[in-house]
């Protein structure tokens, strides 16, 4: 276990270095690339005096390293700028809208894993059968389809044509009026407050967007599991476990899968970060009141502080999740700790 601690410490240090680099990149995007960084920060509709005030505030007349210093200082102090559109601090807006997106992403990822893992295993084990080909087609479709388009098609089919699922939002308007929020996760809140109609409403509202979001991770998971399982199944230790009479189902889902999930877990942070970005597209299609919708509106309305703020958030999340994934992987595959 001591080895584990060294490993974690090392990875932590590396993450900090990367975080630094990310801050430099975002700084460049925020202050260096735009031709009028002050105007972008405060909004083009601001008065000349306001723009000038911002210029001085951001230190745009000073050398780059001073600007960077001020930039980092305000970031660390929690001042991520003010949204030009909502006039609220960006950080506060992010906190407001984050739970909705998290609920969506988590639901989608759970669907992706619950379906993708067995699908990948079956595909690998029953190689070159119709089941395999079907699974592979589904997987490759998942990674090829543009999410915004998939969402719309689902809306078309399930709302317009079949009329069984709602087209947008998180809850029916009537239910929303009397709904008590606790965590911001509506499914959870409905259970906590014992609000059954709300639970039902939240559930049917989340299905389509979650499925849309799950498409890419599902495809990815299936393909990765399939690839790794095929390798693992031909290993000697699988032959050993069969030689000792272990039932085939256990061989596949325990002995083999535990060896095969490694790369998939490594890819999970990337998948989560990707999903966060995909919410920009999905939430605008489904009018889901989350971070993605907030960001996509910001893009259209040139709400620059929001764009930068969300970018920083997602990058940070990605780095942290990567660290977490490495640690989990080291825990699951004890050989890695030695490195």
């Amino acid at each position, binding site marked *: 276990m001591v080895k584990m601690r060294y490993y974690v410490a090392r990875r932590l240090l590396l993450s900090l270095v990367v975080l630094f680099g990310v801050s430099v990149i975002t700084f460049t995007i925020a202050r260096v690339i735009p031709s009028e960084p002050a105007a972008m920060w405060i909004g083009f509709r601001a008065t000349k005096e306001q723009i000038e005030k911002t210029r001085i505030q951001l230190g745009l007349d000073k050398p780059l390293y001073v600007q960077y210093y001020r930039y980092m200082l305000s970031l660390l102090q929690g001042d991520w700028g003010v949204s030009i559109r909502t006039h609220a601090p960006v950080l506060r807006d992010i906190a407001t809208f984050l739970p909705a997106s998290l609920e969506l992403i988590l639901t989608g990822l759970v669907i992706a894993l619950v379906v993708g893992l067995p699908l990948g295993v079956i595909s690998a084990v029953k190689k070159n059968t119709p089941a395999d080909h079907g699974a592979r087609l589904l997987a490759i479709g998942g990674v090829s389809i543009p999410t915004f388009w998939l969402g719309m098609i689902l809306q078309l089919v399930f709302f317009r044509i079949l009329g069984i699922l709602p087209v947008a939002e998180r809850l029916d308007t009537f239910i929303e009026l009397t709904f008590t929020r606790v965590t911001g996760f509506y499914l959870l809140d409905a259970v906590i407050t014992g609000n059954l109609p709300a639970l039902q409403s939240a559930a049917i509202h989340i299905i389509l967007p979650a499925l849309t979001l799950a498409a890419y991770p599902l495809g990815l998971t299936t393909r990765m599991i399939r690839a790794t399982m095929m390798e693992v199944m031909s290993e000697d230790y699988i032959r*050993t476990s069969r030689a000792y009479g*272990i039932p085939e189902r256990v061989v596949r889902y325990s002995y083999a899968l535990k060896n095969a999930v490694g790369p998939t877990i490594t890819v999970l942070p990337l998948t989560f970060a990707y999903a966060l970005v995909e919410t920009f597209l999905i939430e605008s299609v489904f009018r889901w009141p989350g971070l993605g919708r907030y960001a996509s509106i910001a893009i259209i309305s040139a709400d620059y502080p929001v764009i930068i703020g969300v970018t920083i958030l997602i990058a940070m999340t990605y780095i942290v999740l990567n660290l977490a994934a490495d640690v989990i992987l080291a825990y699951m595959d004890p050989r890695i700790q030695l490195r």
Partner: protein
Amino acid sequence: MGLRAEEPLLEIKNLKVCFNTYYGVVKAVDIDHLKLLKGETLGLVGETGCGKTVTALTVLKLIPSPGGTIEDGEILFKGENLLSKKEAEMRKIRGKRISMIFQDPMSSLNPVFRVGDQASRIIVLHQDLQEKEAKEKVLQVFELVGLPSPARVFESYPHELSGGMRQRVMISMAISCNPDLLIADEPTSALDVTIQAQILRLLKDLRDKIGASIMLITHDLAVVAQICEKVAVMYAGSIVEFGTVESIFSRPLHPYTKMLLECIPRPGTRGRKLTAIHGFVPSLVDPPPGCRFHPRCPHVTDLCSKSRPGLVDLGDGHLVSCFLYKQGGGA
């Protein structure tokens, strides 16, 4: 099912195993007859690729299914034909009544599970014990095979153990359910010579302590000499000679066996050229007609390329597959 004294524990009759490969159909195994008695240690000897491992895997019906087919034959284990058993029945036999030890313990143990967990899983499966009791048993067996600090080994992962220790773990997994038959496929080939000796001693010990019957597969005649009682020599998928270690080593009959023994460098032969068997191991897709050894045999006759000699018994349990010899003795 009880065994009469002369009834063999394992008997292989007319076994033919083929593999469909890109290059054609590989006729891997073609065994007339092979017998193993209870309490006996039989050595299955031959060059790499002669079909020894395939034979062992066939006993446990572990031949990969698309690709490998068991075309014909019977494998009688305590009188029951294993080849006619369903998969579910075989699973009850594997690890419980017949166990196998594999060649490379590093790749044969699952790297992401603790060694102790892998071993106790088998006991839980076959002996219907609780996890705690299974763990107790595993620790006992670990001690039996001579593993130092069994408790620590239990918690270890395969890559944390040395080669010798890993092989001991494999052996303990194999004997943990008291199998009737232990098949050891080149158990020492992946180990250093010093560890080799230890493992062989261990196997001998176990054989004496628990009366295990062992089928030892190896290419190393020295190993055979050390712990086997009977020997079966395989060449290109068939048994060419069978007998006790004494009679094979002192009076080898088949030309292949003779040449094999001659190839072993002995003290006193220093400075002389090493003997080798000229020619190459035949392709099993297109094996030589008749006796598969005839292209390399110094005593080849016309008959040898026309038909395959069966195993003949020279009267004292010494069997040989060669036209040079006739039933009951004489050449």
